[in-house]
Each structure stands twice: as structure tokens, then as C-alpha cells.
């Protein structure tokens, strides 16, 4: 079963605008991560935020985490056409070991 759910499912914006994607999850987590998938197959890790952190930045990316609401958001500032991709949140939680579960993803389209 899926642990996380992203919204919106799809987002279309103009180059230079900011893009915000949200993720909600169900159980207590150790960390939350965001990944990107271009058309094709492999996913690439973007950024990680731990359960005791509230905000992280990496270049044009900003991630927030609200553990009381079991939600996270990914903000991409000053978007570029090259940011067009699918973005997935992933949560790692303990089941004995730690298991990383992905949401359904947000498809972002940035128009030049």
C-alpha cells in the first residue's frame, strides 16, 4: 500500500514561476525524501529532510516538513523548462528495519 500521496497530480506553469508540490503520509517517519524522474526510468534523489527538521534548502529547492500534519511540501523556485519531470515524495519508516515507500507523484510541466 502507498504511504504517501502527492498533490496536485499534475502541474503546468510558465518558466520563471515557482512550483509547489505537496505530500501527505500516514505513519510516523524517520525521514522524507523527494526524487525526480525524467521521462525514462531512473529516479534521482533531490533532497532529504529528517523527522526532527522543519525546513531544508538545496539550490532552488526548499522542502518543509510538518510532522503534526504528516505533510511535506517541495518548492522549486524560478522554474526552468528542464525542471519538467515527475516528482515523488518517499518516506522511510521503521518496520524492524527501515523501508522507503513512494507516493504516486506529481507531473510537472514547465512551459518555455
Amino acid at each position: 500500500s502507498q504511504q504517501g500521496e502527492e498533490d496536485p497530480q499534475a502541474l503546468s506553469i510558465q518558466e520563471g514561476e515557482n512550483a509547489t508540490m505537496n505530500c501527505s503520509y500516514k505513519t510516523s517517519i524517520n525521514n522524507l525524501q523527494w526524487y525526480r524522474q525524467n521521462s525514462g526510468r531512473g529516479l534521482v534523489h533531490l533532497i532529504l529532510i529528517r523527522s526532527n527538521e522543519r525546513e531544508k534548502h538545496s539550490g532552488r529547492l526548499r522542502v518543509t516538513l510538518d510532522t503534526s500534519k504528516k505533510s511535506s511540501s517541495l518548492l522549486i523556485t524560478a522554474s526552468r523548462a528542464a525542471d519538467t519531470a515527475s516528482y515523488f515524495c518517499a518516506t522511510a519508516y521503521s518496520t524492524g528495519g527501515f523501508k522507503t515507500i513512494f507516493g504516486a507523484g506529481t507531473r510537472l510541466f514547465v512551459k518555455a
Partner: protein
Amino acid sequence: GAGVSQSPSNKVTEKGKDVELRCDPISGHTALYWYRQSLGQGLEFLIYFQGNSAPDKSGLPSDRFSAERTGGSVSTLTIQRTQQEDSAVYLCASSLSRQGEKLFFGSGTQLSVL
């Protein structure tokens, strides 16, 4: 190699046949994951290996699916008596982390069951 390697990249098989998908993780990575992704969908967790611990098989959809990891390195996902609904991209990922952090993904195997 420097990254996670999966083979074959594409596999076409007939309904009822068995298939084996291979994953060669990054050297030294103790964690290995298998996921399945249908067209336009998210990643469905299948199985997770961590070091020498018993694998977490909770995501395997039926007893036709099995996986093993030999010597803590290469992993093989086997699907017996394939069905059309098994058609998907099968993705493997590995990680240095014991806490589910920063997974490195292979390019996947596109499985088509006719």
C-alpha cells in the same frame, strides 16, 4: 560500475513463462530495494534487503514473485507463470543507509507479458 545496473533493459515474454530480472547494486551498498511502476503511476514497493537480515517481502503481490540476494550483492527478482498484469517497469535501488536514506536507482527493466 559506478551506478546500479539492471538487466535486461527490456523483456518480452509470453503469458505463463517464468522471467528473471537482475540487479547489480553499487558496491558496498547494504540496502537493496525492488519496486514496480506501471505506466504513469507511482512506485509500488515489492521487497527490501538490508545486509544479512531477513528481507521484508511484504510488498510482493503474490507467491509467483520471489527475490534473492546472493552474497549481499547481486539480486534476482523471479516472476513465475507471468500474467499480463505483471507488465510494468521493475526498478531496483540500493543505498548505503540503514535508515532508508538516499536511494540510487537503476534504469529499470521494462517487462511486457503478451
